[in-house]
């Protein structure tokens, strides 16, 4: 048994050495002119799946992660699981020639191993900002031979850097209810904070970064005009009626006027290729609650 194991280990390390040298002779990341157009793509991220589909390369997808089911249309594709818990054999069994992922996918050693086995891995930036989205589209479209489609897709996003101007910018407070009684409020530097800025509004909470649990006093002192939810979050809390009874909310303008807006989570926080439509929708929903729209 022991000597068997020794033989196994020697053979394995030999394989690793051989595999390593073969791979290092080739470019690790895509985008080079010589790399062939991928025919079998595994996508680890809902926004990436959406980009590939909108680039008209949906036919090349052979597998997606669990979050991609939210994008719809890809329901019949094999699912490789949660993108942070990929397993080597599962991905290998789809025989992909390209795996696309953002830096939060993993575990890192699985991606590294797949790369050593000769599968091209395209790592894309994960920044939840418009420039981040544009960079994802550009890098992805050049790797999967869809440069022209990519330029089309990016065009509407370029206008987003000049947000609409409200007569009086509304103060918006984003509440993230993840279920199980966890109710958090977004501060600076989150995807929600960026979306509020892109809609020309002001994040009512800017004295901390990231998310913090909601408190009644915090709600009142933020003085929001509008409360923003994800649709799942509002559902988890029990709908508009239940949400307007949140402690402290009745003492704010948003609570008195029942100015509560719910937006699809993936649209609001995903910074996918259709982030321009998401911003328009957010502006419209806020405007219809307040009875005034920003100047075009």
């Amino acid at each position, binding site marked *: 048994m022991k000597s068997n194991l020794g033989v*196994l280990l020697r053979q394995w390390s030999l394989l690793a050495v051989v595999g390593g040298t073969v791979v290092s002779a080739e470019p690790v990341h895509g985008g080079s002119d010589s790399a062939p157009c991928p025919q079998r793509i595994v996508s680890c991220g809902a926004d990436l799946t959406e980009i590939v589909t909108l680039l008209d390369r949906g036919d090349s997808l052979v597998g997606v992660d669990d979050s991609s089911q939210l994008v719809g249309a890809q329901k019949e594709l094999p699912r490789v*699981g949660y993108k942070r818990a990929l*397993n080597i054999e*599962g991905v290998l069994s789809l025989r992909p020639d390209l795996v696309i992922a953002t830096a939060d996918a*993993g575990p890192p050693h699985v991606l*590294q191993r797949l790369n050593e086995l000769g599968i091209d891995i395209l790592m894309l930036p994960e920044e939840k900002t418009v420039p981040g989205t544009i960079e994802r589209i550009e890098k992805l479209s050049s790797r999967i031979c869809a440069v022209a489609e990519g330029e089309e897709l990016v065009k509407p996003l370029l206008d987003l850097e000049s947000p609409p101007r409200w007569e009086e910018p509304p103060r918006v407070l984003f509440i993230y209810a993840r279920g199980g009684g966890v109710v958090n409020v977004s501060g600076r530097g989150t995807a929600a904070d960026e979306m509020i800025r892109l809609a020309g509004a002001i994040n009512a909470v800017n004295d901390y970064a990231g998310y913090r649990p909601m408190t009644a006093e915090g709600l009142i002192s933020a003085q929001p005009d509008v409360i923003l939810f994800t649709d799942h979050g509002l559902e988890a809390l029990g709908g508009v009626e239940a949400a307007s009874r949140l402690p402290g909310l009745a003492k704010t303008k948003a609570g008195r006027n029942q100015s509560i807006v719910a937006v699809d989570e993936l649209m609001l926080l995903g910074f996918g290729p259709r982030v321009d439509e998401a911003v328009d929708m957010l502006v419209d929903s806020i405007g219809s609650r307040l009875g005034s729209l920003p100047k075009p």
Partner: protein
Amino acid sequence: MGISLVGKRLDAGNRAFGLALLGLVAASVIYLCLGAMRISLTEVLRVLTGGEAEQMSWLVVRDLRLPRVLLAWLIGSGLALSGATQQAVFRNPLADPGLLGVTTGAALGASVFILVAGGTPTSPVVGSWIDLGLVTSAFVGGLLATALAWILSAGGRSRDTAHLLLGGIAVNTMCASAIGLIFFLVDDVQLRSITFWTLGSIGSANWSSLLLLLPFSLVGLVVLPRLARALDLLQLGEADASFLGVDIRRVRVVAIVVSTATVAAAVAVAGPITFVGLVVPHLVRLVFGASHRIVLPMSALVGALLLTIADLLSRTLVAPAELPVGIVTSMVGAPFFAWLLFVGRSRRQA
């Protein structure tokens, strides 16, 4: 007559041990044949015997499935054997390897590492430095927690194990509240990493994680079964056992130190895997009686068998994705255990 009864028990024990061993081998062969990649039995056999085989099947069978099934053996046997030992030492059927804080301590160690390192690793595995850091941090956390429980209970000096149990409860509570505090401090991604770690997985097994765990498991598998006679006598009560020549303090120290190290190493590599340590010893006792000469080795074997079957299901049920194995162990084990309890009850009533 008493002697011949014990002799019969041991004979039956030998047969059962052989049967369970056969079961483990059979389950492992099926394990090596099934998976997201379709590889035929003959191809698997060619790979295992070093014959001509496709490079991909060679890689999947030898490099992914084989180390993983061996890891399932080591972790399953280590958890169940440690559970059986601790139940005997504390003479408490609800004792499990986490009683003295080793699992919660390891979870705290892992959480602290994820908090400090920024949450990149999602499953504890050796291969890159960051994962090795996670494994070490969880291992040290588990050992420190148990050491603290030991110190709090005045070094286990009292004849009674109740103090040690209370020390364990105190440490478990402290670690759990510290983890709660970390939940508050981490961002969303780190939170998901911690949650995923606590589900337990051996999905990231490779030869290096196997080699890392091997020494700890071997010490446990060699040392703990040797305590069988002392543990049997201990069931008479600590005073009686002591009159019969058992060095209680020595047995207690050896049992706790070795089982803690075994469990800490297993949890560090795979995360907490519930059910195996608590229920497998009971399962064995229900079928084979309470003699530790049978319970200890059988627990190790059945623990390995249960985890192998559970991980086989975790790899194949939702392929190409995977279920966390910690969920599957109780899904598989709990109904079987309930059935055994039910059958045992009706047999006693008859």
